[in-house]
């Protein structure tokens, strides 16, 4: 019976175009009512203008399900073989912190991407685009579930892994910054902005850092589980990321200035996210013996070369702040890591103090910028030498730090000699932003951002405690058990104590 049914199915070529691109002329409602501009996005074009929308790689639902089932089976088998507590216990402690950083910041972000893709699956302006976005939503659901399934096993062993699920439900400062970016990127965006920001900039422009660069790192530290998980996810991303370019090309044809604006805005916002999540994992949390290319070298190869070529292919210019981006590439994640290390109780993973070998490697990889950063580590190292191990607070800040009103990240842009933060006034309210691009983004759409209070303004409004210990415990949701500490409690053979 089944064989007969399968035999009756027409060849793929005979029906796929009709199935994947199911569009018709509505007769009961107007096209504007069916696809309202505020939800479907700008520019709002007549249906016939979208008719030639085309994704390069086409698939059917049957093929999708069959392929995904095989991939799921492979990941689950890998988890059974390599996802036990004892497997994670064998990994370097620093690398485990890299896993905790990724495990917290990505799964629920992927879930937000489910929502964004489902919106595109309904309000995208072309049938084939909607089909691809529906597959994209299923992909992102998978990317939510995989890390949750893997990390759930580890919570009983190490409570910091609980932040895999808890992170985005807290008011930890990193979670606030993450939500500020991802809510706009994935939950609030219309399908056009989603396609350009997420599919083109985030996925095509940046995720090779994860799927190639970080997967290579996972391989070199012996973390086959993380390596194979990334590779499995990458195959999904490569398929649905292709939504971006045909949407971008359509917007360029009708409103090139808007297309350039979206590229400029989202490249900067995505860059800062990856600088923290990937940059810190590559240059600090990976054991120095397992590092090959630096984060900057990966960005040079996998972001700059390819992304600039992609922009040129569609006739767009590099973002206007390109020189500032190149400068930040040598400094920003170093500034953030030094800030985070000296406020490590405000996050959910432990951090290593860079030792002589790390600092020599960083000096070699960042010859132009490291000399300004290194004295900070000399100072912190010297302070560790003045106290016994485990006296965390002597190398920990106790003063609230400033946050950018746009990106919600600590004020770390620029260099130790020239921090680029600036105070701006919006609707009579003074706020601080960390950089000229963040100021530009804020002022382009003030109504979108002005209502959001950064942590400093929450403290000043009495909504969050000003005392750091109270802030960490009562507002960020951390406890002495799970808040970040020095990875070795300050016990490093190269620290001299009297």
């Amino acid at each position: 019976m089944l064989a007969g049914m399968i035999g009756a199915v027409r060849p793929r070529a005979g029906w796929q175009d009709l199935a994947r691109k199911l569009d018709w002329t509505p007769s009961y409602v107007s096209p504007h009512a069916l696809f309202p501009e505020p939800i479907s996005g700008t520019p709002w074009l007549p249906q016939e203008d979208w008719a030639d929308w085309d994704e390069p790689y086409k698939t059917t639902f049957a093929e999708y399900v069959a392929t995904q089932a095989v991939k799921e089976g492979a990941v689950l088998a890998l988890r059974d073989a390599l996802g036990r507590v004892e497997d994670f216990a064998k990994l370097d402690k620093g690398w485990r912190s890299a896993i905790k950083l990724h495990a917290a910041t990505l799964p629920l972000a992927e879930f937000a991407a489910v929502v964004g893709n489902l919106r595109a699956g309904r309000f995208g302006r072309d049938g084939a685009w909607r089909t691809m976005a529906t597959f994209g939503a299923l992909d992102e659901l998978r990317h939510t579930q995989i890390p949750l399934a893997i990390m759930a096993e580890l919570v009983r062993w190490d409570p910091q892994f609980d932040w895999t699920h808890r992170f985005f439900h807290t008011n930890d400062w990193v979670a606030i910054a993450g939500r500020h970016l991802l809510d706009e990127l994935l939950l609030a965006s219309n399908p056009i902005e989603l396609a350009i920001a997420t599919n083109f900039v985030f996925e095509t422009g940046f995720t090779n850092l994860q799927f190639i660069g970080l997967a290579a790192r996972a391989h070199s530290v012996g973390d086959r589980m993380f390596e194979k998980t990334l590779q499995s996810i990458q195959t999904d991303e490569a398929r649905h990321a292709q939504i971006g370019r045909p949407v971008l090309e359509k917007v360029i044809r009708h409103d090139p200035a808007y297309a350039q604006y979206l590229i400029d805005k989202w490249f900067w916002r995505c860059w800062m996210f990856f600088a923290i999540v990937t940059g810190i994992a590559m240059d600090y949390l990976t054991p120095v013996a397992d590092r090959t290319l630096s984060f900057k070298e990966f960005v040079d190869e996998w972001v700059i070369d390819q992304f600039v070529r992609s922009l040129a292919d569609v006739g767009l210019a590099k973002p206007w702040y390109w020189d500032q981006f190149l400068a930040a590439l040598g400094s920003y994640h170093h500034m953030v890591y030094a800030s985070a290390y000296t406020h490590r109780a405000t996050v959910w993973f432990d951090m290593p103090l860079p030792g002589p070998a790390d600092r020599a490697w960083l000096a070699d990889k960042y010859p132009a910028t490291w000399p300004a950063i290194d004295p900070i580590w000399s100072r912190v190292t010297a302070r560790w030498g003045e106290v016994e191990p485990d006296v965390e607070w002597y190398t920990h800040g106790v003063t609230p730090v400033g946050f950018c009103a746009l990106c919600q990240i600590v004020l770390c842009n620029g260099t130790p000699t020239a921090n680029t933060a600036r105070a701006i006034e919006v609707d009579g309210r003074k706020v601080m932003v960390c950089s000229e691009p963040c100021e530009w983004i804020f002022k382009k759409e003030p109504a979108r951002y002005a209502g959001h209070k950064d942590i400093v303004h929450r403290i000043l409004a009495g909504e969050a405690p000003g005392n750091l210990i109270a802030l960490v415990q009562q507002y960020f949701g951390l406890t002495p058990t799970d808040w970040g500490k020095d990875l070795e409690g300050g016990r490093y053979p190269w620290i001299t104590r009297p």
Partner: protein
Amino acid sequence: MDHPTVIPLYGFLAGDCLGLVILVPADAKVGAIATTLIEAAITRVAPLARPAVFHAGKRLDLELAIAASGIAPLDRIDVREAP
């Protein structure tokens, strides 16, 4: 007893990696800003020998009263080694 009014400022110490929020008494002198910021960043930056305070591109006299300095809440203040 009345508590003295404090002014929140964004402080940037030369050599540091981030901006800090410091609270200084409104009736203090400009020098108190330098003292407070240097103490707040002591984990990362060694105390400056001769700190100078800059606001809106101008170097301020450390003996000047903050109230007379033109500094307003949530302004950016830079503290650097005096030239």
